[in-house]
């Protein structure tokens, strides 16, 4: 059994990257807001930053996997867009290409969401 799903043609990959982006966004903002409201004793701010950094790395990895699946569905770029024939093949390629672009967008969005972690040195007083 391979870790990648054998099924090439799937709608699931289309959602994966934006959903990862959404969860990463929530993890960062809700996590930081809860931390700053509660200021738990055992957890310091830099640990939270590192933790969210790890969450970011995992999210980026998940998006790369979804992008790879999309690339495979797109036939590894052997065929050029716009894939607009009413054929099964073109439908598959179109979906793969759209998924790949969405993964790219989500990848950048996750980086932009996480960027403040590099600079924020503490909670607002």
């Amino acid at each position, binding site marked *: 059994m391979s870790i990648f799903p054998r099924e090439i043609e799937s709608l699931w990959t289309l959602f994966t990257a934006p959903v990862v982006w959404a969860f990463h966004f929530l993890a960062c903002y809700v996590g930081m807001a809860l931390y700053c409201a509660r200021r738990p004793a055992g957890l310091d701010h830099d640990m939270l930053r590192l933790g969210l950094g790890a969450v970011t790395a995992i999210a980026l990895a998940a998006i790369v996997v979804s992008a790879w699946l999309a690339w495979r569905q797109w036939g590894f770029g052997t065929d*050029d867009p716009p894939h607009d024939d009413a054929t099964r093949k073109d439908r598959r390629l179109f979906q793969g290409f759209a998924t790949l672009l969405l993964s*790219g967008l989500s990848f950048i969005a996750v980086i932009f969401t996480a*960027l*403040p972690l590099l*600079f924020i*040195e*503490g909670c*607002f*007083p």
Partner: protein
Amino acid sequence: MPPTENRPRAKPHLPLFILPFCLAGCSGSQSALSPAGEEASSIYLLLIVTTCGAAVIWCLVTALLVYAGRSRRHVYSAGAGQKLILWGGAILPTSILCLLLGYALWLMPATRPWLTNNETSGFRIEATGEQYWWRFAYRDAENGISFDTANELRLPVGERIRFALRASDVIHSFWIPSLGGKMDMIPGRTNFFSLEATRPGIYRAPCAEFCGTSHALMAFTVVVMEKEPFREWMERQTNLLRPRETEGARLFARHGCAACHTIRGTQARGRIGPDLTDIGARQTIAAGTLANTAENIARFIRAPHAVKPGVKMPAFPMIPQAELTALAAYLKGLQ
């Protein structure tokens, strides 16, 4: 021929020579373009960087457009076109945005709260936005400094000053364009903020969040002073007491002004309106609305709403003119 055709057309001449004079608006007491504080300088730098960057990109895109529209073109392969879109349309803008975002985040003082929070005690100014004026409280528990003033803020040059910002009624926004960025004042919440002035001078600070009818008439004056004069001013304020038994003080009490206003040392201890202990020394009255003259003070007392619609001070049409003049002279004399 219709008669209108005979009339010489009014030529909408733009007097171009006026334009350079508009630049005068860029300097002055309320301009983010002539920074007099740390934060304002970094905001100014950010503005210059983004404007120049945008200008370069605009020139490149326009040059590309002209190049694409020239008469003798030759055809590129689809692959080359796609490469151009990938690099010029996706990778390049994304990297530039990433750099800009990083730079702007790095500039934000709010990301570095040690600027404001490395000590919880010490000197700070508590500013409260009220419809339509500003309450300022100078506090320093260790050095026994505790006095209130209103509508005029005095700051020392070259020292980081911490602020606690509050609002008593609706949202206001605290903004001294020459010194730094904005921070909202929100009822039920205390926002912390800090500023460091780098150049002495007198600056104007408008309320930057619509707060009611007289929002546009809600401003304060900022006087940035050298350190020594500032210390002396604080010293004087801390010990400032006005004589209680003057004619002016009696009038002030008799007409009910004392219910809302404080004049330190006298029986006037009201907290509803601005502290008037040093009203005579301020640049303006009624939160930046009128020049500070005895006539304007009298005019404001007679009919505050005529100067500032919606104002929370009642009108005093019943005070005899002679007493009003005396009252205004008394207030103008509180320097």
